[in-house]
């Protein structure tokens, strides 16, 4: 196998990695906010359910969660999942896992906002939802950026866990290349590692830019 073939194969795998990464963020960033609302709900059973959910998501390995999502519908309920379930299961697994972490990050951000902000808004006559959307949420976003960046960087690397249910992203590809008959051996893992690193480098630069954009106020 030539180096060029290997790199091409890895790049193909990277497209899947990128898809998992993007879809997970698109799903989990907003879902995290809903989970936060659930945790703060006045309806006690909902709070209880959300707390159990967060506790399981944070308390068990993501790799195990991916397996449960993938095999669960069939093994537990006898359902026949759709043909593209392998990929969907990865996306679902990642989204529900990351949403739990984001919910806790949002909670930290929201609870760090001084109570005076709520009181000022209340006296001015803002409704509760106006107060949240206009006053609290924008300040929360700024406060949580460093923690969110941390999660996003972790996610880049976590996408490799998709190998456990056979989704052919970059890491799965690297493993396949490494055991091929005319394999360049460990080199595939080294190149994959470099691509992960470069990707994360770009992610960091972008997140720094976002933080800079938000630094117009203190």
């Amino acid at each position, binding site marked *: 196998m030539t180096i060029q073939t290997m790199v091409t194969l890895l790049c193909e795998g990277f497209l899947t990695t990128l898809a998992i990464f993007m879809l997970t963020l698109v799903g989990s960033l907003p879902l995290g906010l809903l989970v936060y609302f659930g945790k703060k709900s006045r309806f006690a059973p909902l709070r209880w359910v959300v707390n159990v959910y967060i506790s399981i998501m944070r308390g068990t390995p993501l790799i195990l969660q991916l397996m449960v999502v993938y095999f669960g519908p069939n093994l537990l309920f006898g359902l026949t999942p759709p043909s593209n379930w392998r990929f969907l299961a990865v996306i679902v697994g990642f989204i529900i896992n990351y949403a739990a972490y984001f919910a806790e990050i949002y909670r930290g951000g929201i609870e760090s906002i001084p109570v005076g902000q709520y*009181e000022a808004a209340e006296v*001015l*006559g803002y409704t509760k939802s106006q107060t949240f959307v206009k006053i609290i949420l924008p300040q929360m976003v700024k406060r949580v950026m460093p923690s969110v960046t941390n999660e996003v960087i972790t996610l880049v690397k976590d996408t490799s866990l998709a190998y456990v249910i056979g989704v052919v992203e970059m890491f799965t590809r690297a493993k396949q290349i490494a055991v091929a008959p005319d394999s360049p051996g460990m080199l595939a893992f080294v190149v994959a590692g470099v691509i992960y690193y470069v990707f994360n480098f770009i992610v960091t630069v972008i997140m720094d830019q976002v933080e800079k954009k938000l630094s117009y106020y*203190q």
Partner: protein
Amino acid sequence: MSVLTMKNVKKSFGDVEVLRDISLTVEHGQVLAIIGPSGSGKSTLLRCATLLTEMTDGSLYYLDQPAAESRDGKALYAGKEQLKKLRSVFGLVFQNFNLFPHYSVLKNLTDAQISVLGRSKDQAEEKAHALLKKMGLDDKADAYPFQLSGGQQQRVAIARALAMDPQILFFDEPTSALDPELTGEVLKIIRELAHEDMTMVIVTHEMAFARDVAEHVVFMDGGVIVEQGPPEQVFGNPQQARTRQFLQRYSQA
């Protein structure tokens, strides 16, 4: 018709009685100063008046309309709509300003006008610019709160409250977070408002200012009004020993 009427207000936090049967009225154009030692319940009284804290018992009226009335030893609050309406009667200036840090000075002044009062953007901005001018801050419209001194921030906070056209403005120790120099510029603004017959209730530790600007002074201690009257009387010839003791300590300091 009084702007504000509070009758037999009581407030307890658990077993701790912070307000014990306080009554007061504020008429149109009146400036009322509330003085007293820390922990006397001044701020709690203001928070009850501005609906930030619920009274345990007592009645609260704005323009003779009830925000809460005493029923069977408990304060029974009016419905959401009524409270929303009455909230528009008053404004509050906080000790710590509580400006919105992510909004420019201009937006701090316009946003509530637009999203609460339903004014147009042009209308709101016109009003905001006029108020900033009055506060001597017309060059700060595009600044963000963190770029301003404490005194400037407090003046913006006063402008933000005034932008909503309140009929009564409350001040909760408006200069306690400021050094003496900055205190002066904020007191000057409040004094100007007094000359324009703005109805105001001011909780303050600035005795000279209270004596100077208020028409009526209330001295509170231990959750009750110990003494009240015109400033000449409360400061010049206090009737109660507790008032004399408190004022003495101030003149010594």
